[in-house]
């Protein structure tokens, strides 16, 4: 068996990273003053370009990117502290989230020197926002079947196809797209490559998709004979699958997989007052007991990332459990507030709760579904 407690060695956030925390707390307190919980509950789905630029002004976008490329040159622990505070407070981080979390590390690792010099400083400045172009209408969980295709042409590449569910494509400057550069869908993982797609190029159409709640966070993105320059290719041609997988450890190991309902939990806890009903206290404590080992796991994976490792299976296990508790929190609080239907519920609590009740089911979809993650865990256990 290759998935044991040893995969999560106990780790401590080092003092240099903890030193950042108070400053971040003070910044957030100032920035979010007066923002009500039901807005903060949007968590990392909350988009606010001004907030992201204020973060950039502090040097807090691209924290792990070397200084020569405009970053802060800090380690993954510092980033953990920063994002933990942002998420716990419900700061609107969406504008820079994807770029900071995965596009910047991707470009740093696989990009050309020219790409790094061109993109990273502006990403770190809060000038460029990124989105993830993986899913397509017929390629969801089965990502290797993507059909969007880039063909070599004189001086670059011609891109045709369609992406879907692209979060904040309509407000982003660039997409990192996974597309086919050779072979067909039957060739699966081979023949895929990643491209840096400037969304302002001719032939790119972004169409927002409205969801039932009235929100329009994600989009369809169409490519019609989009001419990409030679250096839009990220990494080696045909290496896309491997590169995408390297992103997954970043995408699935962070505190955003346990804290998406935290603003609600804390509002509810505050409203319980000093002498809560024992049943409510037990409900709260049971939720906390599930979060505690998950935070430990996230810190442990941060230590692994800091050592240059890529804990992909560990991250799948963590994300599957984390999103379950994120989904459970609104369900438990809904049960708690309606245990005594004759009592009035705080209106702000109700609003925050209703918002999350309508969205918590997607927490286990975005970033890879339960069944897919469990399949990865099963592979880690030697079953596949």
């Amino acid at each position, binding site marked *: 068996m290759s998935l044991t407690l040893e995969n999560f060695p106990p780790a*401590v956030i080092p003092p240099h990273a903890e030193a950042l925390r108070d400053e971040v707390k003070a910044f957030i307190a100032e920035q979010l003053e007066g923002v009500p919980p039901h807005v903060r509950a949007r968590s990392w789905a909350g988009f606010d370009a001004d907030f992201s630029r204020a973060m950039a002004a502090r040097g807090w976008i691209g924290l792990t990117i070397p200084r020569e490329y405009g970053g802060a040159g800090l380690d993954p622990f510092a980033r953990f502290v920063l994002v933990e505070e942002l998420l716990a407070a419900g700061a609107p981080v969406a504008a820079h989230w994807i770029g900071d979390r995965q596009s910047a590390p991707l470009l740093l690792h696989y990009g050309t020197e020219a790409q790094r010099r061109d993109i990273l400083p502006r990403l770190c400045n809060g000038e460029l926002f990124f989105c993830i172009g993986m899913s397509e209408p017929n390629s969801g969980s089965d990502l290797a079947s993507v059909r969007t295709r880039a063909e070599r042409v004189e001086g670059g590449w011609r891109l045709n196809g369609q992406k879907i569910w692209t979060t904040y494509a309509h407000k982003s400057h660039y997409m990192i797209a996974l597309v086919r550069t050779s072979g067909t869908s039957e060739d699966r993982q081979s023949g895929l490559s990643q491209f840096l797609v400037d969304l302002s190029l001719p032939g790119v159409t972004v169409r927002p998709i409205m969801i039932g709640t009235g929100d329009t966070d994600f989009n369809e993105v169409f490519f019609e004979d989009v001419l990409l320059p030679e250096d839009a290719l990220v990494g080696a041609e045909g290496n896309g699958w491997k590169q995408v997988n390297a992103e997954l450890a970043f995408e699935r190991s962070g505190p955003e997989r346990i*804290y998406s309902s935290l603003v609600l939990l804390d509002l509810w806890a505050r409203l319980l007052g000093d002498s809560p009903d024992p049943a409510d206290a037990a409900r709260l404590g049971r939720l906390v007991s599930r979060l505690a080992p998950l*935070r430990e796991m996230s810190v442990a994976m941060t230590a692994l990332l800091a050592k240059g490792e890529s804990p992909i299976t560990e991250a799948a296990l963590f994300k599957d459990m984390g999103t379950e508790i994120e989904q459970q929190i609104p369900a438990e609080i809904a049960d708690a507030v309606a245990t005594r239907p004759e009592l009035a519920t705080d209106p702000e609590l109700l609003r925050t709760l209703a918002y999350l009740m309508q969205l918590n089911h997607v927490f286990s979809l975005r970033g890879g579904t339960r069944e897919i993650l469990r399949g990865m865990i099963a592979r880690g256990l030697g079953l596949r």
Partner: protein
Amino acid sequence: MNEVGNFLAEAFCRQLAGLVTPEAIRAVEDSASPGELWRTLDDSGFADALLPEAAGGAGLDLAQAFPLVLAAGEYCVPLPFAETMVARSMLAAHGADVPAGAAIVLAGPSAIIPCGRLAGYALVDRDGVPTLVAAGGSGSDLFRTGAATELDEGEVLATLPRDPDAVLLAAAAVSAALMAGAMARVLEMSLRYAGERQQFGRSLGKFQAIQQQLAVLAEQVLSTQVAARSAFTGSAFDPIRVAAAKCRANEAATQVCNIAHAIHGAIGVTAEFDLQLYTRRIKQWQLAFGSESYWGARLGQARIAAAAGTTADFLRRHLATGSE
């Protein structure tokens, strides 16, 4: 960081592999007595690991001793080894004399005392004072594990400074860690069985439905292990850490046993098969020393008392590695 503990745990595991065989476990269960096993275990010295070196121990702290407790759970040690190790250190910390070779159970408030019939002594709570007494367990052996529902207390051998929580915390922490260890073995056994057992012309582990169940099993086991590890921190058990660990272990227990037995089918419950040795004990510990609602309420109260910060602050300050 924990090299001494891991080194000792490896030596301990080697010993347990030869000593605590399934036959030895069954012999203790069938005779409802510790037999020679306790003497051999005690002679090995591991039960003194938490004592200072000057007192013949290894001077381990709780974090270093955690792998030993986990190992006791993994090997299904049918005697109060981990309980004795912790009791001896609590007593030694206050200079109390402990009879040589004593097997001691931690008799915090509980409907059942695991290993209660298999120890000559108990650390009990007498009106808030942890007290070492000669004790024999009686009542029903509900899980056929040598647990007691009643303790017949005899001579008082030592008293510790008043601390109404101390025995319960130690008992719950040890139970959570033993559960975590037993669960790890249950996962291992389930994986092995899924690889061996064939139905419909394939091994069970090839079926996606079984793979998904095993993934959930691994999740529950690993989060319980991480939670238990967090409870073994510092020099004395902390109520918040213990609450989180026992609550997690108890919540996980039902699902872990259900999935493991589902994968094994009928054979898993048979006396001949080893799985039930583990799952009966997991269930016994689940019932002992406070449920998920009990510890959940205490943890929830602690969270509410820390009103100023976020839950993330609470986790970091009270439940993270290195925050003691």
